[in-house]
């Protein structure tokens, strides 16, 4: 394992501790301290997601064009760190909404260049594992962040500002770690003379096929928020532990990311990516037919964790495999953007289904569609696994 991958993993870990600690306490802070109640509170989520998607493409493109993914990633991490400084002085809702938006811009900017760096630092046969290691560390941060934040509030009941200061500290550590200890180019793999990236080279037939596959599967991917709400709907265990369900998903995700990455290296990244959606289908059905709510909740979280572990890093590894070196960041960005936009559309449609059919029937309906698509997706993914790696 290249040390750059592990270092990038730690960069993501401290950055996730930073962002998730604040995200976890933000609702309490807004209602408890700023005294905002539910209805006055209208984050324009879709707009932010749209901005984030555009920025993501831009980040990948800039990384390829400039040939220095590290500096683009550093700009992204730096933007989020600066946002944390402003968070300390934000008191109104609109100020906080702006800071959160800037933070998301930073996140959009850094993701594709960073993933391109992970891909650059590892050989194709090992990339599933490399992304697995990175995602495991990243998710460890996402699991630690909220727990740390609540521990601080336990110690200092009005310590929201303290959480924000700690969050800023972790954000700075992430920037410093990336800036000082991650090399811009993998020393072991010197690049051939740089060619300017063009969209024509990004849009190779194999990558377009992957984007189509990812888009179709994304349209049938219901956000985990809905799965949690479906479980909450059954009452009992899920209601008691509702604020913690995502911790369960994260634990499953971080412990399975490396094994599933290695599996993807062995049997084919496309096949594992599609198999991830079998786990997703399992989580729909478990949440829909939760006869024994305690067991169903645990099982649904495990399946969701499996889904993320077998899809998030694996799709980046697959996009890396199907793209030439000099358009890698753009290709990863394209795949991730397609997934994000498709899931956004899916959430909007699923919201309608939820109230027309009820949570159970809506999940079964989407699950049935997913079941129909899976065999075709599997065939397509297998052919992607047989694609030769493009010449550099």
């Amino acid at each position, binding site marked *: 394992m290249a040390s750059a991958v592990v270092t990038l993993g730690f960069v993501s870990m401290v950055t996730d501790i930073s962002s998730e600690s604040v995200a976890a306490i933000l*609702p309490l802070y807004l209602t408890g301290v700023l*005294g905002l109640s539910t209805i006055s509170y209208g984050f324009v989520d879709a707009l932010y997601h749209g901005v984030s998607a555009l920025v993501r493409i831009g980040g990948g493109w800039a990384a390829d064009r400039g040939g220095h993914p590290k500096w683009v990633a550093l700009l992204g991490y730096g933007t989020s760190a600066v946002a944390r400084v402003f968070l300390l002085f934000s008191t109104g809702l609109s100020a906080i909404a702006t800071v959160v938006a800037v933070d998301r811009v930073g996140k959009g900017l850094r993701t594709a260049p960073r993933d391109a760096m992970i891909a650059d630092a590892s050989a194709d046969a090992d990339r599933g594992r490399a992304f697995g290691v990175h995602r495991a560390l990243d998710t460890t941060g996402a699991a630690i962040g909220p727990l740390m934040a609540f521990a601080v509030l336990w110690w200092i009941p009005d310590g929201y500002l303290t959480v924000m200061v700690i969050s800023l500290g972790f954000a700075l550590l992430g920037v*410093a770690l990336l800036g000082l200890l991650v090399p811009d180019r993998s020393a072991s793999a010197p690049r051939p003379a740089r060619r300017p990236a063009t969209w024509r080279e990004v849009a190779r037939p194999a990558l377009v096929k992957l984007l189509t596959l990812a888009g179709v599967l994304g349209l049938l991917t219901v956000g985990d928020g809905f799965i949690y709400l479906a479980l909450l709907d059954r009452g009992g265990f899920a209601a008691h532990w509702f604020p913690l369900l995502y911790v369960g998903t994260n634990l499953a995700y971080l412990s399975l990311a490396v094994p599933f990455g290695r599996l993807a290296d062995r049997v084919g990244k496309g096949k594992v990516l599609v198999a991830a959606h079998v786990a997703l289908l399992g989580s729909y059905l478990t949440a829909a037919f939760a006869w024994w709510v305690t067991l169903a909740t645990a099982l649904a979280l495990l399946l969701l964790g499996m889904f993320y572990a077998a899809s998030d890093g694996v799709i980046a590894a697959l996009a890396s495999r199907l793209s030439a070196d000099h358009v890698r960041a753009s290709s990863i960005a394209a795949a991730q953007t397609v997934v994000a936009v498709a899931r956004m559309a899916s959430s909007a449609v699923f919201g309608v289904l939820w109230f027309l059919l009820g949570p159970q029937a809506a999940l079964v309906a989407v699950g049935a569609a997913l079941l129909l698509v899976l065999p075709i997706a599997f065939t397509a993914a297998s052919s992607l696994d047989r694609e030769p790696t493009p010449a550099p």
Partner: protein
Amino acid sequence: MSRRARVATFMALALVVLCGVTAYAVASAVRYHRTHDRPPTVATVTDDAAVDAMSEPRILFRHTGIDERYGRVAVVSLVDPGGARAFTPVSCDRVYATSEVESCLRTERGVVTEYSLTEYDDRWHQLQQVPVPGIPSRTRLSPDGSLVATTTFVSGHSYMQVGFSTATEIRDVDGDSHGDLEKFDLVLLGRHVVPRDRNVWGVTFGPDDNTFYATVGTGGETYLVRGDLRARTLTSVADDVECPSLSPDGTRIAFKQASRRDGRTWWTPAVLDLAHGRRTVLSGETRDVDDQIEWLDRDTVLYGVGREDEPGVSDVWELDTSSDARPRLLIEQAWSPAVVR
């Protein structure tokens, strides 16, 4: 810079960040414990007196002075609300009470933060504690103390889902839940509807342990609905009413009326006459009031208002229900008032 120099620079930076953050955290902990170790600045009576106070007409509330009693439920006599307060042994984020029962919504802090509803008898013996799915917002009891309603904010828990919805349910005190009110049949303006974005909040009970009122929000509009617990229906009776509170004689609803000011929602107390549909906006109150209003008597309402310059501190104000009345401070350092006659 050589690799070794970079590692050294990073280590030095990490040490500075670690020390800085730790120093800040310890300083805030020390400040917190200093400010929360001092006795209340308002007049108090001994805890024994709280037992006596619990037997006469009274107002219960959450004490919000930044001191060792922050968050405790306190009691004042109804004949002298501005007088000395007696503290009960219980802390709540939101509290409501009848002569026999208290309901208490609480944030259970810890590495694992949870939220709960606890029901107590009039001696503060716990009847039942149940988890609630989100951050405490409102709680009310029916007049005879047999039903309890709770509204909590269920929040997203990642950057991908910042946003709120409410969860509102009615329970039998010391018994089971009647379920989420969002699942009741909804009739708006005479038509059965199943909007996907509905939210229900702010329950107030009628005297018969079946009728209640609440707010339903959907499509950017809010409605006052009359609920029928046995039939499991919600039927709209007015629009633009939030957090209703039924007057003791059952003829009027006090609520907060939304308007737009400086690009945000601004709430003003108002009263709706149920028989005639006449509404009086109490515009003598010029501040933003975000609370479920409580009736002090036939012509006076109570509500909490946070202090602008002191985060976490609030006061309870009284306001006459004639349109141009001015609010008067009733109980300082207080929130979530409940009048027990």
